[in-house]
């Protein structure tokens, strides 16, 4: 199996997803099944092939990088209970 227990824990850490001991084996099994499925891509000769892009037609132009003022912080803060005045609160970061 390509993805061992240690790798599962490593990618979970990179993904910022906590995995409990009980679910690790199932996740490992599923991920290996998917990896086995996508391994088919190894059968193709990709020498000299460019990576996909949509070409010119789709990325027309970028909008101007201009400063806009958004002052409706109240609306934004309505989506959280974890706030103090105009700030989001999180666990203490600095000792």
């Amino acid at each position, binding site marked *: 199996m390509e993805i061992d227990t240690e790798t599962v824990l490593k990618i979970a850490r990179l993904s910022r997803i906590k995995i409990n001991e009980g679910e690790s084996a199932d996740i490992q099994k599923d991920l290996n099944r998917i990896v086995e499925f996508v391994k*088919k891509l190894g059968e193709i000769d990709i020498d000299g092939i460019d990576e996909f892009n949509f070409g010119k037609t789709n990325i027309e132009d970028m909008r101007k990088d201009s400063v806009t003022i958004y002052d409706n912080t109240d609306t934004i803060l309505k989506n959280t209970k974890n706030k103090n005045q105009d700030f989001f609160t*999180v666990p203490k970061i600095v000792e």
Partner: protein
Amino acid sequence: MNEVKLTQLGIKDSRDLLNKKEISATELTNAYIQNIEESSKLNAFIEKTFDKALMQASEADKIIGTDSQKSLCGIPLGIKDLFCCKNVKTQAASDILENFIPPYESTVTQKLWNEQAIMLGKLNMDEFAMGSSNETSTYGPVINPWKSTDSHDSLTPGGSSGGSSAAVAANLCTGATGTDTGGSIRQPASFTGTVGLKPTYGRCSRWGIIAFASSFDQAGPITKNVTDSAIMLKAMSGFDPLDSTSAKIDVPDYEQELGKDIKGLRVGLAKEYSLQNGDSEASRKLEEAIKILKNMGAEIVEVSLPHTEFALPTYYVLAPAEASSNLARYDGVRYGYRAKLDTNDSILELYEKTRSEGFGTEVKRRILIGTYVLSSGYYDAYYKRAQKVRSLIKNDFDEVFKKVDIILTPTTPTSAFPLGSKGTQDPVEMYMNDIFTVPANLAGLPALSLPVGLDELGLPLGVQLIGNNWQEPLLLNTAFNLENTLAFENNPKKWWA
């Protein structure tokens, strides 16, 4: 007018009656509200915005017949929960967006409201549009209004736009928005006897649509018929400065393109898209569609898309990779769900516990696999390789569209299957559903699913038409011609009310 009949009408017919003042927008909206209230067993609507709908209807009634009237004035629609709607709870059917109220409106829905459409509410879907059966929704699965003739099993309406497809099939709205990343409009349309159109990548703005895989995601309509699809697509399409991948290409009047002669149309049949069982009703229905096109003067051409067998593996590397990046924003800090923390928990535990508890199993699986294929040491072997294979798949289509105008395929390998019957032991089993739909997303091409009839079990079957970039007019007109001859009637027996 009898209310049952009123809600069977769809967009064009409702529009015509509204214009003749034979019905009012309020009357029409109330008829849909009644149908929705009776449809809780289907689990299609997860957020109802009836107050808003009746206000919009009352406004529409004042406008109809005046110079201010727009193309969808007074037409009640359902909106997939992936579209952010200002001040309306929007969760992408995920716990991690618990009680999220967007302070902004997606461009596509704003365009619909600018055309004076009416919003009935938000429609159920697979969590973050990741699923093919609607079973990954935090609200529980939508139930297909259609039932097999030989069993009472609840069937999937398809996914991820299963709420949209079921709502249209069950006459809960005239039409609905969907999104399609690997087949999420076309497969549900096929399973419910509705018309689903995934436009060319860049046709509709993605701004304000909760992102899954940004180089694949595209919004489109699910409707009762092809004309309605044309009407709704026009309203949804167009360049948006807020989405740099939306195209600065004029939006045609798709409805005007319908009814044209298709004599001389070159229709490609790709040998890689054949159904496993050649002696099935699905095969016969496909043959019937081919025969109809031939009789109309189309030329049938055998073609080959040799890299088709690599489409699903390519998709299941690239889409999770993009999802792992897009879903990194859900950290529990600013909105949505936040896990309960222990006293000494750090910010890392805030992220990890929130994401572990807030995301469902399939979403976590895709984030993990996406993170894996992008991680150091595996990037070249998986992600980069898949991007190159994606080019090969696109090249296949480019070659085929030198010989044909349109490609005809089945939409799905089977008709709707019972809930709980697929993918419980092996996630890949569920992924196989998208085998015929994923290639169009990989290549960015427009594709439409049209109902062609019922199978041995009395369940709807769809055929897929794939066109070259920006060929929506051709897709819609070909489908319109087929539809007229097939005369499919979407009338599932009403068991839910």
